[in-house]
């Protein structure tokens, strides 16, 4: 299966993506591989504004028809925006995981570390097969 893994994003092995924004903020979502594996998404629970997130800790929940899955924060920082449209339309995670399906914006405490480049994430998917 060909994977959709944009080159300009960074990734985690737990299938989150991170987009760098100006001003020390990042945008966070789940990857195309993740939405494909989860199936039709019907519920999203996002952290409240100003929540302090810790890299590697559960920060959100996505539920498909089949099952609930935790989303792990790829970075450490404070939530500055939530995608409220996604709460009403969880299917945006399926149809546009890197665009309209973004989940939240986070102001980083320090630099983001330990993230994977696109080619390394692609490699980790291959190894997991």
């Amino acid at each position: 299966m060909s994977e959709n893994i944009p080159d300009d994003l960074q990734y985690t092995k737990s299938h989150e993506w991170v987009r760098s924004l100006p001003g020390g903020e990042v945008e966070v979502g789940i990857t195309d591989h993740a939405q494909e594996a989860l199936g039709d998404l019907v519920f999203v629970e996002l952290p409240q504004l100003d929540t302090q997130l810790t890299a590697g800790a559960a920060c959100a929940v996505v539920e498909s028809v089949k099952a609930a899955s935790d989303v792990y924060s790829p970075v450490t920082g404070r939530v500055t925006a939530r995608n409220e449209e996604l709460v009403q339309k969880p299917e945006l995670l399926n149809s546009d995981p890197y665009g309209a399906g973004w989940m939240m914006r986070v102001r980083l405490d320090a630099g983001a570390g330990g993230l994977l480049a696109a080619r390394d994430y692609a490699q980790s998917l291959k190894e997991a097969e």
Partner: protein
Amino acid sequence: MGLKTPLHDVHVASGAKIIDFGGWDMPLQYGSQLEEHRAVRRDAGIFDVSHMCALDLSGPRVREFLRRLLANDVGKLTTPGRALYSCMLLPAGGVIDDLITYFISETWFRLVVNAGTRRKDIAWIEQHAAPFGVSVRERTDLAILAVQGPNARVKTGALLSPAHRATALGIPRFSAAAIDAWFLARTGYTGEDGFEIVLPAADAVATWQALVAQGVAPAGLGARDTLRLEAGMCLYGNDLDESHSPLESGLEWTVAWQPADRDFIGRGALTRVRAAPAQMLVGLVLEERGVLRSHQAVSAAAQSAAAAAGQPADRKIGEVTSGTFSPTLNRSIALARVHAGAGERVMVDIRGKPHAARVVRPPFARNGKALIEI
């Protein structure tokens, strides 16, 4: 590596996601589970249910035997082809399996039992059949296709000659007829009209492909589960098990108490609790966003004073046995086993937080329509 149905290679070639179900490698979904669900509610879908097991029981005393074996009464089956849904009980009243019985002739009845229970079912049936001289034949040479939806019967009929088509479309609900090599039953597990086609395993692939060519959408076990739950139908292993009687599982309607002298296995135990079963199976509709899942704890809704004081609802009265997102209601729905006398509102614990749910009487949706007001 699990057991495979005759259609396994077709599923894989169609891009199905394969999962283990009761020891079988089965298709979960081919693409979008929600679209497969909607295809069945609005048009027609096809499921491979060849993992289910057809058992042919034969002998001069087969009817007498089944009147002993099953909680429902095959004495009701007076016209050949008629079907009956029943539980098969332990002496203590727990459910060994739920199954459909077809009356073919006075010396031949067919049972269709669940995949995950087939070994224990066969052992139990053979043990009790022996004194009646009834023989049990496992029909591993057969496949089963379920074609379901408002257009399912017409699209199935299109595969048949005009004479056979007329016979097929004339089959009453919950009945079956033999049409050439097919045993065609107007039964299902979706809350929609349709057929279950029991046919030679060697014909399964060609028949599947012919139905798909008629515009019948392949649908997997994922859609099958959301459809049956909307239809308020129990899933063995979730909503039914050996620890609970049919009276605690929403299936009292399947227990034939008359005639009073029919001594079916489990009758004594059921009779003792009939007046006041301790638990009951109810439907739940989640009033908030979220998804109900099996094993979530159900509590009594906080009394208004306690609620005003901000106290949590902590009196556990049961748990969810099956939960999902209902595509038809666009809400989460569930079956839950709760103490008798639960009120109209309960709280369900979803990841440590109480969520309000309304107690309703299933089914939630059938024949393309929501049956619960949101």
